[in-house]
């Protein structure tokens, strides 16, 4: 049966299709086991047509997951052409080059069959609590130190669990139970979405979503092209400094606008790092597209069509298009800067739609040891945010996750789960850049580590050597710092051995200001 001619009927079908992925995400969140999915919201969910094009995504998640899942689907269909996928099959992978650029991010894809024909795919990507290897950190030399690599493979075949996969997985990660439960939750979520879509196709009298997908992606593409065409043809350039692993490095972006197409080209990109801050091109594209969307088209739905007019390019094998066997676990310490780079490139053209520089790269803290004082091993991970850049008309947000969007762990929960005591956690006064609109404040926190025996403290911090730049004459944000007492200043990207009783003080960076301070007085 074919689609109705009535444009309103199409709008309703579109809305209903988006609902299936929100239902998928709700089922996934409900059944997931780990706090990182539920509490921090670190997940994405989407529906794809037979051709592997993302047609709708859930309104949740982080940019790195969502946009990389969109491109990842084409690799999955390359490995398993559609005729090799059967009813009851489920596909899994954490291939960093083909999906989210980190072994911790596991993608699961479930096909929907109707009357024996494959009609759509539901996919999701979640951050697993542990993937073995060195643990979450940026100091690996190659991907092989970072944990278990899951090539694109069948997780289920004809409704039966792939026992070999499960055995390998459970033998190679530190939290096998939670990890498997989250993968199961992804399957449950995908299935919930698929069930809803099946019911929807039935009630709408449709065989598949191919025609609807054409309309949705074409309309989104047209809207996106119209937005790009509003920009004057030409090149928009920007550069941005960040800490790097051993020494600061500069990222350079050139946006090339030609009519209604845009190419985001990274130029003079540093070579692949000998540490874990390398970024696979998928993830580079994900955060670049996210920045463009925030500045140009926050109201246009994110799908294959909206992404079509934009190309993202970086030299093969470089820091921003790293290839096997580069280490990538700390890829967000570079990737999270890309939206700010996009904003700086568009600042003159869209001064009211962009942010000044912010702290950008999420601070990941990991504290672990073998004895919490009662003989039990413990492992604490939490994410913290500094100040966001100001924008026209608004001071920057203080201590808020941008661009990642990931929520923090309550102090009381962290203290309940391991031998740690916080001394303070507060907004960091005067850390925001001056300006007509001031940069957001970073935060300061201190904690004392306890337990017995050595305490391992893994830092994945950035903007301690460089500052978040202001915009249009606004001042820079204050840089961050990490200090141990006793011990003094610590490296921001390493695993440190501490003795119980050590106090760690973290000052997170502030955001940049917007416009010179005088004009507002």
């Amino acid at each position, binding site marked *: 049966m074919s689609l109705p001619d009535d444009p*309103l009927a199409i*709008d309703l079908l579109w809305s209903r299709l988006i609902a299936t992925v929100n239902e998928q995400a709700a089922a996934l969140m*409900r059944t997931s*086991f780990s706090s990182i999915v539920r509490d921090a919201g670190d997940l994405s969910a989407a529906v794809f047509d037979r051709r592997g094009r993302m047609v709708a995504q859930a309104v949740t998640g982080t940019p790195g997951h969502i946009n990389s899942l969109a491109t990842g689907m084409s690799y999955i269909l390359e490995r398993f052409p559609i005729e090799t996928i059967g009813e009851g099959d489920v596909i899994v992978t954490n291939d960093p080059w083909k999906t989210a650029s980190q072994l911790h991010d596991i993608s699961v894809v479930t096909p929907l069959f109707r009357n024996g024909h494959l009609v759509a795919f539901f996919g999701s990507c979640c951050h697993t609590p542990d993937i073995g290897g060195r643990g979450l950190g940026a100091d690996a030399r190659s991907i092989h130190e970072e944990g278990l690599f899951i090539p694109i493979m069948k997780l289920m075949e004809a409704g039966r669990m792939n026992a070999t996969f499960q055995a390998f997985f459970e033998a190679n990660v530190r939290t096998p139970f939670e990890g498997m439960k989250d993968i199961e939750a992804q399957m449950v979520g995908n299935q919930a979405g698929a069930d809803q879509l099946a019911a929807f196709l039935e009630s709408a009298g449709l065989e598949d979503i191919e025609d609807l997908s054409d309309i949705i992606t074409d309309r989104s593409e047209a809207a996106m092209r119209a937005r790009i065409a509003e920009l004057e043809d030409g090149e928009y350039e920007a550069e941005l400094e960040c800490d790097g692993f051993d020494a600061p490095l500069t990222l350079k972006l050139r946006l090339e606008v030609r009519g209604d197409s845009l190419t985001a080209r990274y130029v003079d990109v540093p070579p692949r790092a000998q540490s874990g801050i390398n970024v696979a091109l998928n993830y580079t594209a994900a955060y670049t597209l996210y920045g463009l969307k*925030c500045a140009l088209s926050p109201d246009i739905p994110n799908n294959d069509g909206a992404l079509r007019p934009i190309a993202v390019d970086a030299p093969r094998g470089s820091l921003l298009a790293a290839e096997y066997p580069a280490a990538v676990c700390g890829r967000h310490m570079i990737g999270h800067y890309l939206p700010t780079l996009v904003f700086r490139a568009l600042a003159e053209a869209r001064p009211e739609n962009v942010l000044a520089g912010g702290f950008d790269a999420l601070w990941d803290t990991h504290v672990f040891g073998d004895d919490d004082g009662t003989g039990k091993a413990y492992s604490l991970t939490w994410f913290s945010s500094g100040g966001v850049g100001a924008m026209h008309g608004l001071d920057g947000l203080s201590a808020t996750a941008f661009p990642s969007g990931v929520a923090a762990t309550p102090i009381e929960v962290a*203290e309940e789960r391991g031998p740690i005591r916080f001394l303070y*956690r507060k907004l960091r006064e005067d850390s925001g850049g001056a300006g007509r609109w001031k940069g957001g404040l970073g935060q300061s926190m201190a904690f004392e580590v306890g337990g017995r025996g050595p305490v391992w403290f893994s830092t994945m911090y950035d903007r301690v050597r460089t500052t978040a730049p202001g915009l249009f004459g606004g001042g820079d944000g204050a840089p961050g710092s990490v200090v141990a007492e006793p011990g003094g200043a610590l490296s921001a990207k390493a695993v440190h051995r501490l003795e119980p009783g050590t106090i760690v003080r973290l000052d997170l960076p502030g955001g940049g200001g917007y416009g010179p301070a005088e004009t507002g007085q």
Partner: protein
Amino acid sequence: MSGWRIGADIGGTFTDLVLRDDQTGAVALEKLLTTPEQPDDAVIAGVAALVDRSGLAAAGLDALLHATTLFTNALIQRRGAKTALITTAGFEDTIEIAREHRFDMYDLRMRRPEPLAPKALRFGVVERVMPDGSVHTPLDEASLAEAVRAVRTSGAEAVGVCLLHAYANPAHEQEVAARLAADLPEVAVTLSSEVAPEIREYERTSTVLANAYVQGIAERYLDRMLSRLAELGAPERLFVMQSDGGLLTPSTAARLPIRLVESGPAAGALAAAAHARAMGLKNVISFDMGGTTAKAALIVECQPLTAPEFEIDRRYKFHAGSGLPVRVPVIEMIEIGTGGGSIARVDALGRLQVGPESAGSAPGPAAYGRGGDKPTVTDADLILGRLGEKSFLGGDMALEIEAARNSVDADLSSLALSTEAAAAGIVAMAEETMAQAARIHAIERGVDLPDFTVFAFGGAGPVHAWGVAERLGTSEIVYPASAGVMSALGLLTAPIAFERARGLTCLLDDVDYETVNAALSALAAEALAEVEQAQPGQPSISRAVFLRYQRQIQEVRVPIRSGDALDRAAVEQLKTDFAAAYRAIYGRASEAPIEAVSWRVTASFPTPPAPFPEMAPGSGEADVAIKGQRPLWIGGEFVEVPVYDRYRLGRGHRFEGPALIEERESTVVLAGPAEAEIGDFGEIRVKRA
């Protein structure tokens, strides 16, 4: 006990009252305009009118059961007390840092709500309690004296106290309270260990501040209400509804007003549950659609589902995370920005969108002729014959169909559709949005909606329940009588009850029975103390625990079946019950260790009888109630359908859809083939064909 009670619900526009004579079962209704300056005025006037009309003596009033949006409004409009916060030194900014979260992914202008206590009113005291309740640093006298001095200097009228891990050991908070009471007796004080003794410092602080913020308003309001009731000759007869559907005494309510914030909607859900019980329906989804929002609650096995937390004032398109979190038990309700006043527009992709922007009641829909010119859901309803031009609000307010048509033609011209087709699009999109929100909520709670009956009320609920039911795949819809006073009716169905909770985390394999039993006994004593003075008789005690698999986030409420001290057998039973409950919600259980998170004890009196009077049998056929015909837009064309006068329909009358049934506050729209029958209590029971 002379056996009559009144339920009084203060809403944004109307104050509704229902009097029930429990001996005869007779019910009388009263509806007045809300008096926002002095909200008790309308209540007292309504009580006087009902007493007068019923020929009863005010002194015989057993109970005035009350729900109000007063405290919610004070929080939304930021009209509460100047409120200070005392917290553990070093953590004064917790309320501002919140969860460091953003609730909209793409909107760079997104802002979290401003804290109720600004930075200049947040003061630290040196002290430290650890998660196990042990004291790491005793409360420092000098810092306490300094903080109390700072509160005095600031001129704060209320203080919230939230110290780290106070849920595990409230001693330091109690010391702070004692000092505040001694030095600043006129300042209202709320302790986190009293209002929300559970882990997670941001949510707890937010709850404490919200309570402190409205405490003064609550105290003054309830005092005034009590004294005016005494003047009427009915002293000490006031009870107030909590957000979880239990009733409180005024003294407890004045201390913990944050427990009352969702009292009106909670009472509405209770009414739906009571109807379900009376009508023999098991599973119901209540659907309450008004001018700016629609609310839905799931009622499973005749009980509304509850949640331990909710958000006040989700001011960003009703997004989760954009409001003030409060950790108090509530009847779980989803609220979305779709109402009669929701505005339709065409977005950048040429798609029709409806809401959440609303024309409200001023200027209101274009058809109101009060200056509104944007097309709304109500305008669409009028164009399609779903509402009558001359029968809106019983004919008191004429609707202007030309204005409605003009608004649709002007704003939605890019759709290139006929006025009727565009209006039908508005209705379809609004109903689709509501159905989707309900379906996602059902998935979150693991229930299957097609088995549910839709229970429709509110001004716009009966107009749109058909379309929502159709989209949810449910075949039964109930339209209760007296839909305009549903919350006031629900108040009469509520038991007097109070729940106390305490956070006390431990593995079920590792329970310290002494500690847990001591905590349960203390909670029971506290809960009993709250309800015992309320009415004669012996309240019953029920206990529950929130369990989860170790380190999982989602908790499941599991009743403790045994009434005795907790022992190994009772814990084994808890494990079994948890696994069963978990399987029911999530489809599978696990072998992981089970962890208890918080323990809860409820003291309650029995649920009173349903307040719905039985309706007299209708005489003759339902046709006697037909007052005319009207073209109704169904499936792309106008169809002439009968218009029934609801007040002339009697018990047992049967008729078929499509049809319209008009009553004063709303219109029931049966937009397709259906069997309809008037039930025992005057409700219209509809089975879609």
